[in-house]
């Protein structure tokens, strides 16, 4: 546990010491502010505060596009580059379990994203100050869901970082995989016929977007959905650890 905490702290510090993280943070802020204001100032329907807030926290494609690219960019270097520079050799010969190394890295990246998503609270404060108090419960639930989903995609990013030897390739492949995972269920649902139905049933189990909409976005904290995200995150982390271990065998 001490080892895990040490790795987590180091990785988080590493993220904030790199310029990339600050650039990404700014991008998130501007991007979210743009869509927030876009909905808020919708002339046809008038200001809809809660809708605007939910949009920046998982309620629409802009958020997911952001998450699907940010998570790979944050995690791309964590294993591939450290494997090259030898830092992985340092970490994996320290008296810390391989799992703790991988989980510490995933937690650091997830914390970073959770922090980025909390910009929604700023928007909330802003509209509260302007006299249109948001639904704070719903906002918090959405933020929690966004952070859980971030954990899953960071774990997947780490799998890619462990699989591929250069950070950019790792990020590229992870983004591709994320988009496939995100876009496949709705695509398949639109198919007809028995094969499509079967496939749809299978894909239902990994349909992140639906699970998100089903609960967090609606402001309901449903343990089944929390478990959905945690279970898939754990599976991805397990896979990442196995890939790291198999890298040792390959040398």
């Amino acid at each position, binding site marked *: 546990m001490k080892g895990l905490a040490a790795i987590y*702290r180091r990785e988080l510090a590493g993220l904030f010491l790199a310029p990339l993280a600050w650039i990404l943070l700014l991008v998130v802020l501007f991007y979210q502010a743009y869509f927030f204001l876009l909905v808020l100032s919708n002339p046809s329907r008038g200001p809809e505060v809660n809708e605007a807030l939910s949009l920046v926290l998982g309620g629409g494609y802009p958020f997911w596009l952001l998450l699907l690219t940010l998570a790979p960019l944050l995690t791309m270097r964590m294993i591939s580059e450290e494997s090259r520079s030898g830092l992985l050799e340092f970490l994996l010969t320290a008296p810390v379990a391989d799992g703790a190394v991988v989980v510490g890295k995933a937690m650091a990246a997830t914390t970073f994203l959770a922090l980025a998503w909390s910009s929604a609270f700023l928007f909330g404060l802003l509209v509260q100050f302007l006299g249109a108090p948001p639904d704070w419960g719903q906002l918090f639930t959405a933020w929690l869901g966004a952070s859980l989903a971030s954990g899953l995609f960071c774990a997947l990013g780490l799998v890619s970082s462990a699989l591929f030897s250069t950070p950019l390739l790792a990020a590229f492949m992870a983004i591709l995989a994320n988009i496939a995972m995100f876009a496949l269920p709705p695509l398949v649902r639109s198919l007809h016929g028995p094969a499509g139905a079967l496939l749809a049933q299978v894909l239902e189990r990994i349909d992140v977007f639906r699970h998100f909409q089903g609960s967090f976005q609606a402001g309901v904290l449903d343990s089944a959905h929390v478990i959905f995200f945690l279970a898939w995150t754990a599976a991805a982390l397990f896979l990442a650890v196995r890939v790291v271990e198999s890298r040792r065998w390959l040398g």
Partner: protein
Amino acid sequence: MIDVQHLSRRFGPHLAVDDISFRLERGEVVGFLGPNGAGKTTTMRMLTGFLPPSGGTVRVDGFDVLKDSLAVRARIGYLPESVPLYRELRVQEMLWFQGRLRGLSRAEARRRTGVVLERVGLAERARSLIGCLSKGQRQRVGLAVALLPEPEVLVLDEPTSGLDPLQRLEVRALIRELSKERTVLLSSHILPEIEATCPRVIILQRGHIAADGTQTELVARLGGGGFVRLELARPVELERARTDLAALSGVHSVEAQLLADGNAACEVRGEGDLRGALGALAHARGWTVRELSWQRPTLEKLFTHIAFELEHEHPAGSVRAAPPSAEGAA
């Protein structure tokens, strides 16, 4: 303290380490010597638990490196060849991180950071960014990182590479000092490094142990590696001098030749340092002595001999160690 049995490692079809066995007792200082690609790094990576062996076992303090990996790792301070450091951290932050990884309390980590930085001579650079340090300074930070947990075993892969001659001397002195308290295994492809620091040497050649023993044992095995050099001023009766020298008791062989300037140079081999007897003979014969010196036997001869011999006799990859190895010395 370290017990390696029949250790092998392959990378695809390539055998990087081929069935090596050796033991290190507590407090021993052993040098791994071998040309580039001999398998030194691969062996050290298996000892530290980074690479799983393809075959054989490694035990450190009784713990198996595969089964009790964490126990083994907790006992080893390791300086990898690539000297991995977080360039964006400051020197002291890197060391504190190592302290946390090893489960040290904050106060203890800070205390030891001061101690090890003092030891490697970097106390005044504690706040420098690692990325801004020179190669030699980073090498010493790496050493400090390996020392911080005060491990029972130190595994140092090429600890003096990238250092200037003065720093080399300092690091050698440091290693000699450490060797009083710890078991040390260090590697180098540079012979004088090993000669200066390690009483015992293991010579690796293409993944095999080509020789294992103390420097004196190995040199003795080389057989008459040392000789007395005697240079006589002209005029010299070369044949006469040769027979006289050869007739001395204890002399095994004499090589004598006239140099271009007319003086004669002799290499006298026999039982050790025969300078006294040779000096007395020269005095009795009335020779004018220009030089009388004892040329110490060196590992270098053995090293080149082994490397050369094996390359020649076995062009293929399947080489068995020629001189007796681990079992003989243990």
